[in-house]
């Protein structure tokens, strides 16, 4: 009896696996701070955050790459009725904190902790937030791959004369799991160009939430950790002054002005089913291709004693109702005759 289908043995012809796919995401600071004369920067009338695109955002070619915002809690020394957008900055901080740091036993919003030890230690009170879009971060930021370079030269006009590199270098083998938003690592700052930091040792300057794709940076990257505080705007204001005295969008502009480079790898979790299409020597040696026959006679045979031969270019996966559910194509034809056997491994990713 002829047949063109071969049934899988469910116990041994398929297996489910999980794979991680990583992509490198390099982001040059010039895109963020000047290439498109800020046509790729979108500000909103509500003023709560600023969106950064990789191309002028009115173009359909533009991709949303990340959002910037900043804030502080009500307990911050910067909080006050005279501070610009004071309520919005508090709202932003609390929103980010309750999503990323969660609530304490009394139901109060936890503040971001510098070292991840929620029971004690310094808190991050004044913070910048870099929210990576899902387009870039995919399922998560790969641990240990995040590097952000910031220009921290004291003079506003030449920010990149001195730089620091902020990495989650400890993330690959030491990360925290006490966040409701998944795993996070501590961001450490090191000297990049020059020696702008007050101490040579790496300093904790923020948190990176891997699955959420959000980096929380303490405002002290432009102040307390440096030998000389950075001028955040043309008026030579300090970071604390602009955090309290400027709108969120102005603070985002100031951060972008000192944004040199950002790079990280993302991870996509692929769940795969691998089907082993086993072809024995007696299987699939003939073809129903119309060119296989000339007046019903096989063109690959001179007489009946010649071995039949066929060439595989595709594998079709079918349902019990013979519906074609998936197709796999080989990159070159594969010869099949009664002297050969092979197993074609077809992997479907979900």
């Amino acid at each position, binding site marked *: *009896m*002829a*047949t*063109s289908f*071969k049934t*899988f043995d469910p116990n041994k012809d*398929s297996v489910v696996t999980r794979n991680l796919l990583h992509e490198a995401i390099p982001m040059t600071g010039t895109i963020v701070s000047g290439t498109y004369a800020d046509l790729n920067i979108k500000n909103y009338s509500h003023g709560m955050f600023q969106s950064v695109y990789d191309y002028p955002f009115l173009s359909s070619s533009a991709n949303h790459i990340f959002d910037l915002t900043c804030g502080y809690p009500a307990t911050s020394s910067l909080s006050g009725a005279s501070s610009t957008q004071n309520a919005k900055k508090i709202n932003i901080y609390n929103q980010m904190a309750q999503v990323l740091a969660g609530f304490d036993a009394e139901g109060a919003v936890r503040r971001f902790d510098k070292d991840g030890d929620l029971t004690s230690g310094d808190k991050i009170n004044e913070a910048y937030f870099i929210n990576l879009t899902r387009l870039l971060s995919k399922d998560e930021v790969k641990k240990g791959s995040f590097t952000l370079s910031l220009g921290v030269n004291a003079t506003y006009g030449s920010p990149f004369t001195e730089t620091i590199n902020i990495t989650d270098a400890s993330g690959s083998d030491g990360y925290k799991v006490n966040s409701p938003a998944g795993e996070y690592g501590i961001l450490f700052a090191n000297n990049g160009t020059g020696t702008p930091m007050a101490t040579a040792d790496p300093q904790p300057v923020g948190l990176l939430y891997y699955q959420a794709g959000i980096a929380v940076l303490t405002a002290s990257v432009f102040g307390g950790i440096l030998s000389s505080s950075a001028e955040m705007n043309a008026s030579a204001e300090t970071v604390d002054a602009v955090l309290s005295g400027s709108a969120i969008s102005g603070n985002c502009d100031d951060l972008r002005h000192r944004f040199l480079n950002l790079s990280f790898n993302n991870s996509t979790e692929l769940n795969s*089913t691998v089907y082993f*299409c086993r072809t024995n020597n007696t299987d*699939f*040696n*003939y*073809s*129903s*291709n119309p*060119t*296989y*026959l000339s*007046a*019903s*006679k*096989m*063109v*690959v*045979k*001179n007489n*009946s*004693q010649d*071995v*039949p*031969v*066929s*060439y*595989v*270019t*595709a*594998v*079709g*996966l*079918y*349902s*019990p109702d*013979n*519906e*074609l*559910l*998936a*197709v*796999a*194509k*080989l*990159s*070159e*034809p594969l*010869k*099949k005759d009664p002297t050969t056997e092979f197993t074609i*491994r*077809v*992997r*479907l990713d979900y």
Partner: protein
Amino acid sequence: MGFLDNSGDIILDAVLTDLGRKRLAEGNGRFRVSKFALGDDEIDYGLYNKNASGGSAYYDINILQTPVLEAFTNNMSSMKSRLMSYSENDLLYLPVIVPATSLGESAFYTGLRSYIVLVDEETVNALTTNNNSLDAGLLNGYRPDMGTNLLRTDQGLNTAELSKDSPINPSLLETQYFVQIDNRLGFLRPSSGGDAENPAAFNPTTIDDDSIATYIFTANDGTRVVTNIAAGAESDINGPRGTRVALKLASSLDMRTSTFLFTQLGSQGTANITSGTKTLLAANYKFIDSTVRVSGVSTGYTLDIPVRFVKKTS
């Protein structure tokens, strides 16, 4: 689709078809891979050179260099020719399926190499006076139970090198067929039976995301669609005969009652259609060209039969 890179190791480019994605989205367990088939759509076996001077290593040198296209996601565009498994290695002839056009009732419409399906009563009445006497190749899609014209295919070894009186090798005998038709345009009907009030009908096994309905017919399944061709009986098969598929076509309700599909998919008539003394002028009808696909389930051979749906518009 582009070609796959064939400069290095053999790689496999796998995709879910649009139908596979639909079944997955339905979430009702219909996405279940239970079997596989191998295909060779790109291969032209005419390139196989059994007389290559360099010997057998050179017989298929041109075939092995065939570039392979990336996988299509349309389920109807892939796996059109499947590889077959037969227990014997000494077969020299394989069966084919051909339209049985030498038989008067199932001949193509003269000069068109296609069947013409008249989709509504007005169109039928333009070519016959009693709904059932139409020239060969004209199928009454409005009342399939009327008239004798039908669509018919024969299966067997189409070679004069073997006697038509010889019985066909049982492993080459096809006993089950897939028949596919665009469900927007028409339905399959039995070659006899039914009337206007109670038309005999078949239910498709599946209808895919492109509205292609698949029917399955088996010999002795009671539908009388698949029958054996007696040895030596009249047929378009020159050698040993296998089985015959006989069907009629009914037009869909949309085709009967609306010109929408004809406007969207069809064209204005280009030639007059005649039956007996009656003529439907080209200017007075629109048509849609489609196919009915008949595939042998076990022998894998596929035949696309051209079908033209015609509607009188003025």
